[in-house]
């Protein structure tokens, strides 16, 4: 037997021993375990009953919801509205294609050894939005036009988050570079821009975009409500993005800057070829985390009258035909957001672990 084949013994505790060390190590822990265990047993049972065992899944209308549990029938019947908003039924295949492409581009990112996943990711950042700009609004290539006032539900949430993050990335890079610039005027402008946007709540930004933007523009120029919201979200998000990227720029050792200078590279080539590729790689987890918070914050657009997924649910639970379906609606939205956010955050944690070289400065 060679030395490399000897493995360390696996430490395995018998269940009783495990419970004694992890649950009942002293009187205080025992008391805690009992109290928490009691609370769990008394709450999880009824919760599961409500969620699954007593819930109504089948039926044709509100009158079928007679059980004590949740009325998932409501979600089932309104699912189309929750996902597509007012998007016409006959054109929903266009949105479906976008969902499929989105999944094709980003699900492989979770799989370590997927062939060509880097290229799929790049496609997701470049080709996908272009296809989306053609498919979803339509109006060209013989596609029927669907106005943005008809977009809604999960689809709108994803559009807002996706365009928000994609548009704010380049602006954020420029702002971060500007904040670290040697030129005092540029630095000052960038600092003021970043700090002002970061200090105000998104809701005031959205209000401003919907109330003040029309005032700023010359006569005859106007944007749709969705475009105004997107402008507000992008500007606000770019300030946060700039701070994340600045963190990456600061983490690059001075030697890299000096080496690039010594090679005689100009400013943009130094940044584009040497500094930014390293800095951006460092802050991918940060960018992903910003994305998660932006994704959650897109729900705020319902306040200025856009029907994102929460807005769609909020407007249907007020429907007098369905009694007391508020909790079901909220649980459904919460579940949708949770799946996305939890999945993405796991991805970013994996990435962090992979990018962690072990030596921190």
């Amino acid at each position: 037997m060679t030395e490399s084949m000897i493995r360390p013994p696996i430490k395995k505790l018998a269940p009783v021993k495990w419970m004694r060390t992890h649950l009942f190590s002293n009187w205080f822990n025992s008391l805690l375990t009992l109290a928490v265990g009691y609370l769990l047993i008394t709450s999880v049972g009824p919760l599961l009953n409500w969620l699954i065992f007593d819930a109504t899944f089948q039926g044709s209308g509100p009158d079928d919801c007679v059980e004590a549990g949740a009325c998932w029938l409501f979600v089932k019947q309104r699912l189309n509205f929750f996902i597509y908003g007012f998007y016409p039924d006959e054109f929903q295949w266009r949105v479906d294609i976008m969902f499929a492409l989105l999944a094709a581009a980003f699900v492989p990112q979770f799989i370590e050894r997927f062939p060509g996943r880097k290229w799929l990711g790049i496609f997701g950042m470049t080709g996908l939005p272009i296809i989306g700009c053609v498919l979803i609004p339509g109006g060209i290539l013989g596609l029927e036009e669907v106005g943005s006032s008809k977009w809604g539900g999960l689809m709108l949430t994803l559009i807002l988050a996706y365009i928000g993050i994609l548009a704010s990335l380049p602006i954020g890079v420029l702002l971060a570079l500007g904040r670290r610039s040697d030129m005092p005027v540029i630095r000052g402008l960038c600092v003021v821009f970043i700090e002002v946007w970061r200090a105000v709540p998104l809701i005031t930004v959205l209000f401003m975009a919907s109330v003040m933007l029309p005032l700023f523009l010359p006569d005859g120029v106007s944007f749709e409500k969705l475009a105004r919201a997107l402008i507000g979200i992008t500007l606000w998000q770019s300030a946060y993005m700039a701070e994340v990227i600045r963190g990456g720029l600061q983490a690059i050792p001075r030697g890299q800057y000096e080496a690039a200078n010594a090679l005689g590279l100009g400013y943009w080539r130094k940044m584009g070829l040497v500094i930014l590729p390293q800095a951006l790689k460092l802050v991918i987890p940060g960018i992903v985390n910003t994305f998660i918070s932006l994704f959650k914050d897109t729900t705020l657009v319902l306040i200025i009258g856009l029907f994102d997924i929460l807005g769609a649910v909020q407007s249907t639970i007020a429907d007098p035909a369905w009694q007391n379906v508020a909790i079901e609606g909220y649980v459904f939205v919460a579940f949708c957001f949770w799946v996305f956010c939890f999945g993405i955050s796991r991805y970013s944690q994996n990435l962090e672990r992979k990018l962690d070289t072990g030596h921190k400065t």
Partner: protein
Amino acid sequence: MIPPGLTVMLFLQGSFSGRGMKKQTIDSRPTGPKPLYDPRVRALFFQVISLAAVFWVGWVLIDNTLSNMQSRGISTGFGFLGESAGFGIIMHLVPYDATMSYGRTFWVGLTNTLLVSAMGIVTATILGFVIGVARLSSNWLVAKVALVYIEIIRNIPLLLQIFFWYFAVLSNLPSPRQSVEVGGALFLNNRGLYLPGPVLQDGFGLVWGAVVLALVAVVGVRVWAKKRQLATGDIFPTFKVSIALLILLPLVAYFIAGRPLEWDLPALKGFNFGGGITLIPELVALWIALSLYTASFIAEIVRSGILSVSQGQTEASKALGLPNGLTLRLVVIPQAMRVIIPPLTSQYLNLVKNSSLATAIGYPDLVAVFMGTTLNQTGQAVEVVAITMAVYLTISLLISLFMNLYNRAVAIKER
């Protein structure tokens, strides 16, 4: 005198770069680049251009705005702040009624924002620290419950949580007649949370005096105890004595003054409760949601802060013979706080900014009252939005300033 090595180098350089044996002048000063390639000239140029661009964009925006406002008949200036508002607000900490001015609505909104922010910060901090410590508990069940709480709560949008508490939980509470009652003093129903309110009688000033006296005494004891410890090495139980002083002195004063404190209990009068302190459901929903949501982030910050203190520190402290409590108080917590404070500050800032979601459920905060109703009634969007943004900017800067000062006090003192 030129060192010999350098002459050789100069000679070589001359022979390689110079053409033939022409007269070689060696000038060690770098000749400056042409103005077009001079970094300083370029920097100046870019800055002037960008400044000009910013001024131009600003001028165009202002020009557009002014002409738009003129064509729509919107007046400018802050004169509207003095006009009568004419709308009621369901909750106000400063005296207010519909006849008062728009300026007053600003203060009502601001105090409401500050109230819910302060309440949220206190409860979120307590809850966050408890959950963060629970996450590191040696008790498997407690640690897992804390983990599940964090992972669920922080991955669900705050607005959804506010809606959940307001529309799904608080609206479904029983009516005032069937209120949930705790000890005959605390009532919860779909109109809000009713708490007993303290009514201060004459002579309560004595108690306030005792509180001030106790605070002074605590400071005195600390100074004295530190001096004594430096001189003799004996440790004085400062903490216990301070607590005792803070509780006993006001208590003694309270009894001497003849118990000058009465409680105004809420009671059912007709269809609703009267007396005591009323927390409207909008406030309760916002408070619960903000606290629970922010607590999940604070818990992660606390956890990473405690984990950042290396095991060696604890072991060294044990080796010095410090008991567990002192190890925690003198070694672990001070070092963990250094890691915790900066992200904690940004969570507080987030909480203040998130309190503006109040407008979605109708809690009269600054955004709902001032940027909502007042803006709609006056139409003076520019002034109102500018004031509101300035307030949030000021709050942010103030919180960062205080936290930076505190951070400087606890930061590592490097020599």
